[in-house]
């Protein structure tokens, strides 16, 4: 397509592009790579011949850090994995630790956890939706999404005291109870978020340009999905109806009513629809939790704060949870001391991202941004 291109004279340093294939580095500093993803792309004109992701620019070795302190101390590193859905990360850790130590958690705490996790799923999906629109050249949905996310963050601020990294779930419960003001805020939010979501969806989904750019782009077949270990909305968009909240319910997901949306196309548009529908289902879950929220303790009185650092555990435990990006779980191995022997993080984005070469081959540069943003990678979690 491009043939021979000669740069204008550059003082004897002109690049003569005899080869048809150009290698371009997308990232790590590039507006659409969602953090620090770098993709080495080989291009034939506008067509992608080969795409190899390079990761590790945000590597902090959270696993090693979490293996260096007592069990509750690991929480702050786990918080910083998927920083846009920190509560979902905390949940995975807290469930694993409680499972390892046989800690009983009061019902109210579990319900609160479930509600908070769903709210955080909404916040995470809203960030995805906004940045996805931005990648498709739309500036406006980004602001609408962040406006809505802001309301969720205000609720979090009211309940947990912080907006991004909460450190809210504790071993044996949660750190603070839900205030009546927060309940009012959540109720108000559940009432009108549905219409706002409709509005945002129509900006993208009813635009011919958006639909024509996303249909049939970045396709992953069901076999590829299984082979790469892709989970979460990406998996459900490729025709595999799996949601851990339904399949192996944790918390009280078996006591609430919700559907698992799935589609069979496996392209960017299908992922878009699946995520939007998931957000609707999350509203449903939050509404039901508000109805069913029982009175009682919000943490197990046996596990007071000074006690927590002295908790000891043996054996191993892995509790899979459904984070906004896919299956998240932590494999904990205890050696009988108060420090975990091994903390192994199963991060969904890492596996999802490894499917990039298959997803991109043969598509155009413009599809690269569409496909990468449809993975919804968060680099705190990919690089750990």
């Amino acid at each position, binding site marked *: 397509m491009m043939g021979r291109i000669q740069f204008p004279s550059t003082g004897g340093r002109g690049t003569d592009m005899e080869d048809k294939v150009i290698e371009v*580095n997308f990232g790590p500093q590039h507006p659409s790579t969602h953090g620090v993803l770098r993709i080495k792309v080989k291009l034939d004109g506008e067509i992608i011949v080969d795409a190899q992701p390079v*990761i*590790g620019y945000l*590597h902090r*070795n959270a*696993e*090693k850090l979490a*293996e260096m302190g007592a069990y509750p101390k690991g929480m702050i590193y786990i918080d910083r994995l998927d920083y846009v859905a920190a509560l979902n990360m905390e949940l995975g850790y807290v469930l694993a630790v409680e*499972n*390892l130590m*046989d800690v009983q958690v009061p019902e109210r705490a579990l319900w609160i956890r479930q509600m908070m996790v769903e709210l955080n799923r909404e916040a995470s999906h809203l960030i995805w939706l906004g940045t996805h629109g931005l990648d498709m050249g739309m500036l406006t949905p980004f602001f609408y999404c962040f406006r809505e996310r802001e309301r969720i963050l205000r609720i979090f601020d009211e309940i947990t005291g912080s907006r991004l990294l909460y450190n809210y779930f504790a071993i044996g419960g949660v750190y603070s109870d839900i205030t009546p003001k927060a309940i009012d805020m959540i109720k108000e939010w559940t009432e009108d978020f549905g219409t706002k979501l409709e509005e945002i969806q129509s900006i993208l989904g009813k635009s011919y340009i958006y639909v024509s750019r996303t249909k049939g782009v970045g396709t992953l077949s069901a076999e*590829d999905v*299984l*082979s*790469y*270990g*892709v*989970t979460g909305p990406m998996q459900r968009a490729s025709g*595999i109806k*799996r949601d851990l909240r339904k*399949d*192996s319910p944790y918390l009280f997901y078996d006591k609430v009513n919700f559907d698992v949306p799935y589609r069979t196309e496996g392209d960017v548009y299908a992922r878009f629809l699946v995520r939007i529908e998931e957000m609707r289902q999350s509203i449903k879950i939050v509404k039901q939790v508000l109805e069913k929220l029982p009175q009682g303790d919000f943490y197990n009185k046996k596990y007071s704060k000074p006690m927590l650092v002295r908790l000891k555990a043996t*054996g*191993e*435990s*892995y*509790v*899979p949870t459904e984070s906004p990006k896919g*299956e998240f*779980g932590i*494999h904990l*191995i205890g050696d009988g001391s108060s420090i975990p*022997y*091994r903390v*192994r993080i*199963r991060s969904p984005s*890492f*596996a999802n991202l*490894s*499917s990039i070469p*298959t997803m991109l081959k043969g598509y155009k540069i413009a599809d690269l941004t569409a496909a990468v943003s449809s993975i919804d990678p968060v680099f705190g979690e990919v*690089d*750990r």
Partner: protein
Amino acid sequence: MIPVESESSTKNGIKVIYVAKENILPFLKEKKEEGFDTLLMISGVDYKDHLEVLYHLLSSKNNTRIIVKTKTDGEVDSVTSLWKGADWHERETWDLVGIKFKNHPNLKRILLAEGWVGHPLRKDYPMDKKQYVNLADDGEDTVSFDRGEGY
């Protein structure tokens, strides 16, 4: 049937199977044919006297999981021929724990820069020795013990 060394389970009832390291590839192949179609992750654990490799398998149809473990001294067969996703997981395990995977197509470091000394998740990894990453002329990262302009 591939012989199983021993069986146990995690606290929440996921089956843990120990397999000899020579048998790991045929065993996983057998399990894949049994319906365990998803490889969730591969992890390595340093038990000071030996290393262990963990394979988390999931059957998406039957909704069952198993964890396959194998004891090794630092080398196992690669399972990239069974699952494409194993590529990155094995690279990560090599990078952080230092377990070599035989017949892996591209066994390079993935999270740390190429040239890093040591494997951080080993229990004897010196935590006080700082290594610095610099940008080489060809755009790739290099690692050294002196600071340079790196970070």
